[in-house]
């Protein structure tokens, strides 16, 4: 009960605090520079210069507190030893370069980077095109979009059941092994198959991200002027040629946005690996490696922070490109 009160009052303070801030600061500004009298013009101009900063102020402060400061602090910590007591310079980074597990994580991340965005975008594009053309397309779309609503951890658990292993002769409760045994095959411990297990994990993310890609690309496909398609049909293009030579090039900008967005999700992938294999059997990825060093066993803040910084450096350029593309789309 106490908790409930706490929640309600927090919300109330938050909402009314916001209103009070915007209304109050605006009121004060108008008092300081009244938009009337001799210097009305000057006052309005000055107030207009200050007002954006007043309104943006809270957001800027919180962004600094929760984004900029942690980044800088992470970088600073990455230059210290495991408990932050001794400055070690770039030692943590040189250690990273030589660490086998880090190299495995980098390699796996690259693999994820190659496979997942391509597959998610491709399947999304196919789903968008095909569901647009059939009667029950909207139901199909909802089904394909549904995984987007499932948390990564939830998705990991669901797929763990699909890959579940029971010894030969026992009842198979994993879907994949059940299918395999139905065809007379031997049940496999899928998540430990070296090399392959990475792809079994990637499928989960593809399954989740395809819905996202489909929704965005479907909107883009519908935005293509119908006449260009009709003109192509008159020019003798087959449906496949219309799709690949007329439609896809016209939504290339949107495809780039989808592709980079999925790429960023992929670079940060953590939950799926954490839940399903925890980085064992050669499936380690950067985010999970960072978690391992940061919070498991004897925490090593220095090495954990160094991995985090590497991850951030990888994501940033793609992020910039993504925003650039998205803006170009809006224009």
């Amino acid at each position, binding site marked *: 009960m106490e908790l409930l009160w706490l929640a309600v009052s927090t919300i109330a303070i938050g909402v009314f605090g916001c209103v009070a801030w915007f209304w109050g600061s605006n009121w004060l500004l108008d008092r300081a520079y009244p938009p009337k009298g001799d210097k009305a013009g000057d006052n309005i101009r000055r107030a207009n210069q200050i007002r954006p900063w007043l309104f943006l102020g809270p957001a800027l402060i919180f962004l600094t507190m929760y984004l900029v400061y942690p980044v800088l602090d992470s970088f600073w910590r990455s230059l210290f030893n495991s408990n932050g007591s001794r400055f070690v310079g770039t030692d943590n980074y040189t250690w990273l370069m030589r660490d086998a597990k880090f190299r495995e994580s980098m390699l796996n991340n690259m693999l994820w980077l190659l496979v997942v965005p391509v597959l998610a975008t491709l399947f999304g594009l196919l789903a968008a095109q095909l569901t647009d053309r059939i009667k029950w397309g909207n139901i199909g779309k909802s089904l394909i979009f549904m995984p987007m609503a499932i948390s990564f951890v939830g998705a990991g658990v669901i797929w763990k059941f699909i890959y579940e292993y029971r010894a030969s002769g026992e009842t198979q409760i994993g879907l994949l092994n059940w299918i395999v045994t139905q065809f007379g095959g031997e049940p496999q411990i899928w998540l430990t198959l070296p090399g392959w297990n990475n792809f079994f994990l990637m499928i989960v993310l593809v399954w989740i991200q395809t819905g996202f890609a489909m929704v965005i690309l479907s909107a883009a496909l519908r935005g293509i002027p119908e006449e*260009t398609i009709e*003109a192509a049909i*008159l*020019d*003798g*293009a087959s449906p496949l040629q219309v799709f690949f*030579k*007329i439609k896809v090039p*016209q939504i*290339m900008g949107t495809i780039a946005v989808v592709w980079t967005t999925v790429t960023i999700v992929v670079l940060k992938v953590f939950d799926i690996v954490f839940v399903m294999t925890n980085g064992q059997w050669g499936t380690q990825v950067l985010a999970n490696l960072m978690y391992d060093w940061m919070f498991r066993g004897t925490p090593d803040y220095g090495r954990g922070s160094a991995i985090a910084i590497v991850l951030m450096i990888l994501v940033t350029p793609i992020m910039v490109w993504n925003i650039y593309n998205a803006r170009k789309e809006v224009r």
Partner: protein
Amino acid sequence: MADLKMTNVAKAYGDVNVLSNIDLTIRSGEFIVFVGPSGCGKSTLLRMIAGLEQITAGELQIDGQVVNDIPPSQRGIAMVFQSYALYPHMTVRDNMAFALKIAGQSKDQIRQATDRAGKMLQLTPYLDRLPKALSGGQRQRVAIGRAIVRDPKVYLFDEPLSNLDAALRVATRIEIAQLKASMPDRTMIYVTHDQTEAMTLADRIVVLAGGGIAQVGAPLELYERPVNEFVAQFIGSPAMNLLPGTVRTTGPVTTVALDGGLEAEVAIPTRPEDEGMQVNLGVRPEDMRETDGAAVFEGTVDLTEALGEVTLLYFGTNAETAPIIAKLPGIHPGLNGRRVRLTAPPNALHLFHEGQSLLYRDGPPPPYEVRAAAPSGSMGSTPAAPGDDPDRIEDGLIKPQGPVR
């Protein structure tokens, strides 16, 4: 040879009939224009010829071959869209080459064809640009070029000038006319709602209304001998005035007693049994002249619009019925609020009974010949309307004047 023949063609969307009983033969090399009010199905008819719309019933033949179920690209047609429909990601050259590439022509052939089209349409300096770097007129020329390179038997134009500004529209219209002149054996079908385009470009105009063909004929035939009130009012701007009345005397020349008490003589023959018949007298605004003799219309000018070249007089703008409009050549200041008597030559008048022209009562009238205009008043000779009878109609009271300063 690319005759195009439609037999009983119809189009329906579910239970809604858009077009029905379309019978039309278009001869090879003709320039045909479809006109009609919005929603009359003119674009739909064009898209059916193109193959972009299914034909619900009837038969469409191109070159003697039934093409109802033949895919668009194999019908020997090319289409120019109102919105240009250029492929935005391809250069001008690639836009024009697309159809040829699909058809598997060699690189040399494609280059030749696109070079030629580029030269024809003055697009050579722009061949390597993307459509977004072109002006509206240039884009439309690329769209035309895309049709030309395919060398189709039939060109289809769907309101190609509607997205251009007024000056460019005139220029592009002339270009299309020249293009047609340079390809006398190619058939062109052109959809527009713009009368000027229809009148200037067409060999024959097809007026569509109410889901069917209202009239087919040469532009001036539609102007001078409209088959019904709809065509009469649709062709010509401002629209033809309709004055209700009854037939008083019949014969080779008919006298009509108009509802306001005036009388008009019309050079349209009527039968003796027509006496007392309700008719609408049709008179075009541009055929009306001021008179102080016998008038077909008398009223107080509510509004004038001076365009310099002509002056438009509006009568009865407050009434619920359509206002009567007269178009007098030249400048006429100070007419507002004055009472004016107007007349028109008997052979410029039309008679309609229940919406249909009396000219066409006994089947089609003898072949149409252009009614040549008398020398125009602007050159200083008799300021008379075509076919004016100087004995009966006196000179206008108000002579055209020089510009008012």
